[in-house]
């Protein structure tokens, strides 16, 4: 691993997040994600998994502590810097978040159009990622004409089209049946194998057990287990 890999493309240093109404969501959370790493975030609902993901794309800022993502840090990041960072991140959600009045290719192209990509480059890039996720034949289908697994693939294609260095996935298989889950997870593995780091929050412990990736387990806003760290004595 290079020095950059060791320092991590994502760094959380003693991050605490408190909400005025619901209280503490994260407490003194520290971890790093290296370039090209695949990390599972697990834990019960309300453990803080989604809060961590939202902090990675700066939708939330810590109450204390520091989040650094590819050189952008939570203390000083301007809105413009956050926008620029997000163009290099891919984000995937459980509910897909596709625009229903647009085709698969239009949904993917949308991510390029709003970031001022020259028009001539949009078509080839969209074709490339739709092929990568196995949906080249459904490019002109509207989202309501696609299965859940296919819709998630479109969402992944949209996340990939800007060649992100990290893909953030919040329960990406949460709405899918077992077969679709396997398909989407296999796709994420392939994306990771090509060098993109992936941070994936999931409740699916079977998926976690069968994959040999780093796992960070959270409970009540704290890291209770990190497979990359040696277990504490007596733990």
């Amino acid at each position, binding site marked *: 691993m290079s020095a950059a890999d060791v320092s991590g493309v994502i760094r959380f240093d003693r991050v605490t997040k408190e909400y005025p109404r619901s209280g503490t969501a994260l407490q003194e959370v520290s971890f790093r994600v290296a370039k090209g790493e695949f990390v599972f975030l697990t834990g019960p609902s309300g453990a803080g998994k989604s809060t961590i993901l939202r902090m990675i794309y700066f939708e939330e800022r810590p109450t204390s502590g520091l989040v650094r993502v590819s050189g952008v840090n939570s203390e000083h990041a301007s809105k413009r810097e956050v926008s*620029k960072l*997000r163009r290099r991140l891919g984000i995937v959600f459980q509910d897909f978040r596709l*625009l229903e009045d647009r085709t698969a290719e239009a949904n993917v192209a*949308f*991510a390029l159009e709003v970031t001022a990509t020259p028009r001539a480059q949009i078509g080839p890039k969209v074709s490339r990622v739709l092929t990568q996720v196995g949906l080249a034949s459904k490019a002109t289908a509207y989202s309501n004409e696609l299965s859940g697994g296919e819709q998630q693939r479109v969402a992944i294609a949209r996340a990939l089209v800007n060649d992100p260095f990290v893909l953030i996935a919040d329960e990406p298989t949460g709405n899918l049946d077992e077969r679709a889950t396997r398909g989407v997870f296999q796709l994420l593995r392939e994306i990771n194998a090509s060098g993109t780091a992936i941070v994936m929050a999931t409740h699916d412990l079977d998926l976690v057990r069968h994959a040999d990736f780093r796992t960070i387990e959270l409970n009540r806003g704290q890291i209770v287990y990190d497979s990359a760290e040696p277990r504490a004595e007596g733990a």
Partner: protein
Amino acid sequence: MRRTVRDTSAALERSPVLTALSVTTIAFSLFAFGLFGLVALNIRNALQQVEERVEIRAFVADGTDAESIAAAAGDISAFPEVQSVDIVSKDQALARARKELKEFSDVFEAGVLPASIDVRLKPGFRDPTTVDRVAERLRSYPFIDDVRYGQDWLVQLYRLRNIAGVAGLALGLAFAAVSVIIIGATIRMAVLARAEEISIMRLVGATDGYIRRPFLLEGFLKGVGGGLLALLLTWASMRLVDQYLNFHTVFFSASLAALGVAAGAFIGVVGSAAAVGRHLRGL
């Protein structure tokens, strides 16, 4: 800019019903305001026409020589409040009375009516206080017998003008406020209809400025469209009233009409900026 225009036209095309609804709502809000404006304009014009008839008549004593009257008339016309001065001889006064009061024309005999100096005042100097002040100065001429200007009538006219002005301003502000609220709510509805799209735009790295620009252009176009439609509706209403009630309504001047459309555009842009800004802050 080209991208903003393209995004805006795509957004308008994607939701034609909502676009039509927005433009219609803006149009009817401005139409209500326009009708009020038209009524206010015509009341103002009517009062102005009455006001233009304000005249001070200074009756000249019999036997006054023409040179003295002419000298006084020249002197009076130099008053800063005075617009015009007419010398009316006894014969002219008789002819005027016979013409204005035809049914009593036999009553008037030559030499009965006195000669007079008729004074008209400039706009802005026709209020009761100024008229009274000028009348007092006319009375100071030794050959002036009497000065008349319909004092009671003038006081009533100015009271009516003041009531109309205050009521017009209050109603105008109320109509304008209601229009702004309705237009703001309409634009907010259009923004909320695209909430998912806005949230995805932010997630994939669009800047707030990029997200905001098409909405501003959309607000501008809807405001202009609504303003033009409101103008058309106001004009059509005026024509109907003129035709069926036999009125001679005055319509807005070109510059006032342009100002109305510009106000629509302004409300559209400001309403959009506020609605998108509020939405972006809430994300």
